[in-house]
């Protein structure tokens, strides 16, 4: 029987050996994946023993997220408080016991809990642990201009919409506001009060960051891309002239201008953008074809999630959508290029994306990565990571960008965007009124850039979107853009 017993011993040892292997698997290979899962309550709760890193605004330098200590069962735990409440709620997000994290609290969790793989962080953490002190997380300094952020939220008021403002030279995001907002301090206890928000849209969805995860019909703001595509194709110049009958015929159907009572007659491309003439862009679109316009849009990062430090699922790609998912046509004939050229036809965009478009046009065609984080600093003050400007690509040639920028400047000077004029600055902008099919519930837009004068590159780009409006982008969104831009520009004048 001894041979059998010996074999049985090997079987028994192999069974326990499998357990060693699988324990190793779960604790090493699989551990990181499990730690990232949103339903991992163990990890989430365990991290409340970390003196979580603080989050700061850029200017004025205030704490957007801080900790309160509480002793629970003999342990010191650190719970989050958000002193600025609703102001930066969507960007910073929340970190609570009961719910999964969002915003920078989620995407920068490793830094905030000092579990990022950085040698000095590891050493600090090990020392804290050996001394029995709570582990201290790294602090995050954002690029958010808190005053301008407040202006944006005040201007939005009870209207549903979003504002994104960034420095197109560096990509630093100064404003990222979404309305209706929420008070992150209420997420843990008092969640009911968050959903009882008063807003001019249903569902109000206060937790949704409309600035980067809200998809809207771009309306005429998309003409900026069509115009850029037209110039890049060399089939058109700013001086190309068109005869505007007040409408355009696509597949035998008439597509009207916003105001059909006053046809513009003979008009050049420049003025067509400044006065937002649909029929002209409709014809440009038909001439170029959908795919050529979309390819230019892709150069501006359409069809990709725009890069930003917030979690990926809080950023959505812009582009054509079909049945809820991103759609790129196989053939030109799959898409109505005439209607797409002025921002209808299943085209959906995020405010973040449109701010990037305005910015790239304003700085001569270079598209830089938007960044909401400025730097990450260790508890002792040592800087762990500084965000430097990253060029995504040259979206269009400098000539094209400057030509489109000039058209947009005319638009603010004497076109549809006059409400956005700021004395002492040269503003270029484009209005948009996206028709949703329901009267009185248009999506209105204003995208713009601001520079010192017509020669210098833009130092600020902005996108404003409003839902459920009866007015136009020029009358509803442009004033908000002006107010927010003024708040940011006044700071750079007297820092």
């Amino acid at each position, binding site marked *: *029987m*001894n*041979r*059998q*017993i*010996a*074999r*049985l*011993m090997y*079987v*028994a*040892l192999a*069974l*326990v*050996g*499998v*357990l*060693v292997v*699988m*324990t*190793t698997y*779960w*604790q*090493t290979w*699989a*551990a990181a994946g*499990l*730690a990232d*899962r949103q*339903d*991992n*309550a*163990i*990890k989430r*709760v*365990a991290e*409340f023993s970390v003196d979580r890193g603080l989050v700061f605004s850029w200017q004025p330098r205030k704490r957007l997220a801080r900790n309160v200590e509480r002793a*629970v*069962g*003999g342990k010191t*735990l650190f*719970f989050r408080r958000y002193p600025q409440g609703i102001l930066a709620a969507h960007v910073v997000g929340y970190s609570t*016991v009961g719910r999964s994290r969002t915003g920078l609290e989620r995407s920068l969790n490793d830094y905030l809990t000092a579990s990022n793989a950085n040698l000095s962080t590891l050493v600090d953490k090990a020392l804290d642990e050996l001394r*029995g002190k709570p582990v201290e997380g790294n602090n995050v300094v954002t690029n958010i201009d808190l005053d301008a952020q407040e202006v944006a939220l005040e201007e939005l008021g009870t209207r549903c919409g979003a504002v994104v403002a960034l420095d197109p030279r560096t990509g630093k995001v100064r404003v990222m506001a979404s309305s209706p907002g929420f008070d992150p301090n209420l997420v843990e206890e008092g969640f009911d009060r968050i959903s009882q928000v008063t807003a001019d849209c249903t569902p109000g969805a206060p937790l949704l960051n409309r600035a980067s995860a809200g998809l809207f019909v771009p309306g005429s703001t998309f003409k900026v891309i069509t115009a850029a595509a037209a110039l890049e194709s060399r089939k058109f110049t700013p001086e190309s002239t068109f005869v505007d009958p007040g409408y355009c015929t696509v597949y035998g159907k008439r597509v009207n201008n916003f105001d059909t009572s006053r046809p513009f007659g003979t008009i050049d491309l420049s003025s067509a953008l400044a006065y937002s003439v649909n029929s002209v862009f409709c014809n440009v679109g038909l001439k170029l074809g959908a795919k050529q316009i979309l390819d230019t849009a892709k150069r501006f990062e359409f069809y990709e999630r725009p890069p930003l430090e917030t979690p990926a699922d809080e950023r959505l790609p812009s582009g054509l959508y079909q049945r809820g998912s991103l759609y790129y046509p196989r053939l030109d004939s799959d898409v109505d290029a005439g209607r797409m050229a002025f921002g209808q036809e299943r085209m959906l965009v995020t405010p973040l994306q449109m701010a990037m478009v305005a910015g790239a046009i304003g700085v001569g065609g270079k598209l830089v990565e938007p960044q909401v984080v400025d730097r990450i600093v260790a508890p002792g003050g040592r800087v762990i990571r500084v965000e430097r400007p990253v060029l995504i690509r040259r979206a269009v040639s400098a000539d094209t960008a400057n030509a489109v920028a000039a058209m947009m400047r005319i638009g603010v000077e004497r076109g549809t965007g006059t409400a956005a004029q700021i004395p002492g600055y040269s503003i270029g902008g484009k209005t948009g009124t996206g028709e949703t099919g329901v009267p009185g519930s248009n999506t209105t837009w204003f995208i713009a850039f601001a520079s010192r004068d017509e020669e210098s590159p833009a130092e600020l780009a902005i996108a404003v979107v409003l839902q459920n409006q009866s007015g136009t982008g020029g009358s509803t969104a442009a004033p908000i853009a002006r107010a927010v831009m003024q708040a940011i520009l006044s700071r750079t004048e007297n820092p």
Partner: protein
Amino acid sequence: MTARNRELLGLVVASLIAGVALASVTISREAQVSAAAVAWGAMFLGLYLVAHVVARRAVPYADGALLPLTAVLTAFGIAINYRLDPEDGGRQALWVAIGVAVLAATLIWLRHDYRVLESYRYLFGVAAVGLLLLPSVPGLGERVNGVRLWVHVGPLQFQPGELAKICLIVFLAGYLREKREVVAQGRLKDLGPLLAIWGAAMLVIMQTNDLGSALLNFGIFLAMLYVATGRALYVGAGLALFVGGAGLLYTALQHVQDRVTIWLHPWTDERVYCAVNGQLELRQDCASYQLVKSLYSIANGGFGGTGLGEGTFASTDGTPLIPYLRTDFVYSAIAQELGLIGAAALLLVFMLFVVRGMRVALRAQDGFSKLLAAGLTFGFALQTFIIVGGVLRVVPLTGITLPFVSYGGTSIVANFLLVAGLLLVSNRANEPGASFR
């Protein structure tokens, strides 16, 4: 050095481990070193010294490693239970004391010749089946988590399955020693008991929903059958029957289907029907909640663990995050607090125990003793595999205890009986001049 002196040395080391483990729990809890840990280590040593002294008298030639390995496992068990709930730790220590007493009594009772048990083999066989079916007797059994494992008699409650395992092994050792030749010839008539036991195992699953205990007992049966006959074909045929039967049960019993679904797909991306609240939920928030949380617990331990007393098992308001932590999921508590190093060390202790137990079987002189030792040892290993494998998602999760570590009196006492059996067999095998008797 004699076996008993090695045992004494091992017990001193085990007591040091017990003291250090308790000290680290109290340091973490009260942020100070207390003398209680020293006192506890001394008490622990005193307890095992009783077993040691009895062993010196009753089984002087028995294997010297088994008792220290047992002591280390119980030290792990008491420390983790004390850490999770000090009162439970105390109760667990009391059960270990009772287990030691049962061990001592068994050693004294059977010190002359444990092989008298062989003549009561059918009594043990009947007792095994009876104990297995006891929880499904109306008025006695209690259904916990959909599985009938517990029996209540007045204020007492116990898990008869643990004792049934020991009875079954004694029965099989006796029965197969007697019938091994005829069984090996493989006539249908002699295969009757095999089929009868297979039927009984299936009956137990249906009656109690207890897949784990059925798997354990059937595995022990196949292993002992193989040792007795040397015919791998029986093992293959037995496994095929078990898989076939389990397959039939899978289609017939919702409970078994649920266990397998949870095992294969613990996480879902879409909401599925949740039987607990009748709504649509992600499976990780509903049916596979326990398994998934336990995996998170293990993963949170990482390489070095959080340290005893520093793990996270409850939410900040004290709500437990892992149900059945002290019994079914005790391994995930250990793996979080002691990390890969500690969990691997624990498994290594189990492996050493298996090696020593099988060595006892190899050195035993007669068929009954060989079968008894091999069966006890394999049962010990298989039980460890089924519960820890369930927690680690190697096999579907079924609720049985981790020997000597899980909280629970019946399990502790039954496993001390198992150690007593191995000590008795090895004493007889190692006795001077044993080979001439």
